């Protein structure tokens, strides 16, 4: 009986320690899956969007909003954590797929690359101040001149 109690105690302690350890490890090693918002300048017309359309906008293959005006796409560097999260979670793609499409256009004269920004702050500033702009942020609500972009 005592042996059993001892054993069970041991297991509980060991298990909870492992649980704690794995939780700590998880918190440290696995980056928090933050929510990402696609943002547009207030000038962008409200239109119905699909995942496919959103991909085409960021791939620079759909270059005009529904009012006929040209899109301005802002992106972070390929290896920026937010860019990786954005392509994966929002576009269901990988950064290298977008890169492939842009490079093929840029180096064959058949299209332009999106505008590169260095930081999230710059992203916010550029999208807020550029007509017809689209970009993304960790949390895009509550900024002036910026509206959240939704797709079905």
């Amino acid at each position, binding site marked *: 009986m005592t042996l059993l109690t001892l054993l069970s105690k041991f297991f509980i302690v060991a298990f909870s320690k492992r649980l704690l350890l794995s939780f700590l490890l998880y918190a440290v090693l696995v980056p928090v899956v933050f929510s990402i918002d696609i943002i547009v300048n207030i000038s962008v017309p409200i239109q119905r969007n699909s995942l*496919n359309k959103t991909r085409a906008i960021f791939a620079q293959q759909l*270059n005009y909003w529904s009012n*006929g005006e040209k899109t301005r796409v802002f992106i972070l560097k390929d290896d920026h954590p937010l860019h990786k999260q954005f392509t994966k979670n929002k576009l269901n*793609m990988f950064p290298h797929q977008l890169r492939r*499409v842009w490079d093929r256009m840029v180096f064959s004269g058949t299209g*332009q690359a999106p505008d590169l920004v260095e930081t999230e702050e710059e992203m916010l500033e550029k999208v807020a101040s550029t007509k017809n702009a689209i970009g993304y942020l960790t949390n895009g609500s509550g900024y002036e001149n910026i509206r959240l972009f939704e797709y079905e």
Partner: protein
Amino acid sequence: MKTYGYLNMNRWGLLFCALLISSNGQAELLPEEIQIHGFLTQDFFHSSDNNVNGLSDDGISPGRTEIGLNISYQAFERLTFSAQGLYRRAGYIDKGSVGLDYALADLNLFNYQKGHIGIRGGRIKIPFGLYNETRDVAFTNPTILLPQGIYFDRSRSLLTSADGGSLYAQHRTAWGNFSFKFNYGLPLGDNEEIMSTILAPTAKGEFKANPAIATQIMYDLNGGEYVFAVSYLDLKLKYHPADNEVFSSGYNTIRPLLFSAQYNGEKLGLTAEYLYRWNHSKNYDATPDNRSITESWFVQGSYRFISRLQGIARYETLSLSIEDRSGNYAAAFGLPNHIAYSKDWMLGLRWDVTSSLMMRTEYHRIHGTAWLSQSDNQDRSKTRENWDLYALQVSYRF
């Protein structure tokens, strides 16, 4: 040779500085309608036998350099101008030349909910397979040497760009996107290398290309995770003989049909292309009229160990004529049998040091000499059937 190398280094240095300055100044100095991009690539080759891009046989040849600088200007909402200058040297095929790679006006004609239609005019890149339009841009290529059975380096002047027009369209659906290109134009070309490979190294006249058709239909699914394409070219070369020459004014037609398929996963990439090419040579007098079919295909797999490090393997095969796969016809002309075919096993490693600097290396084990250039291998009887090729590449882009 040394002086030549030194002079070249100086020239690169200057160009490189120019590129750096323009890339740093880009964000602040240029208006938003203008984009400037460029690249600079240097390759090194070493082979156990046979020469690739210079004297690589038992030596190291820094034989290929590619420098490009392009500008794109969005003049109006629907009208864009773009141009790219290219400096290139590649072994004895091209000892160094500067050219206009493309220069075009792109007019977006019509947009609808699910697609667009447009036209381009000027010097336009030829769409062919998955890699041809950006074949000189190392970053967009899977390996240092593209599969040579399909993207011949020796006849590249026929395949790079053409002066003419293009109609393009894209249609997006929930189950994939379709893109279509139809180009009609006069291919560029110093066709000396082509002349020596299709006709004979002794031919003294000149090949001139007729306007050619290049068309491609592409289907991609899930943002380019799966890509399928069919490309077709219709090329005609007319021969203008020199005085007192054995060859009369004949012509050649070359009609390649290419099927492409690609999977782009998070870590795994798979690519396969299959080429079936109709060749016809006629009215040369000195040689009988001839029809042949060239076949080439490759399968290629790549794996991203980490996002900046990628391994790649490929098997590629080429038969210049499917009715003479073992080269008996060539042997009858006193050429080695192995000029008729090649089988190439390749292993490579790509390291993206930063997003604008890339290094890679690859090893080829090759059986056959079908895609070797004549310029680098003047005496075919000295070429070897089984050989190894090592290549190293450093490339910078902005």
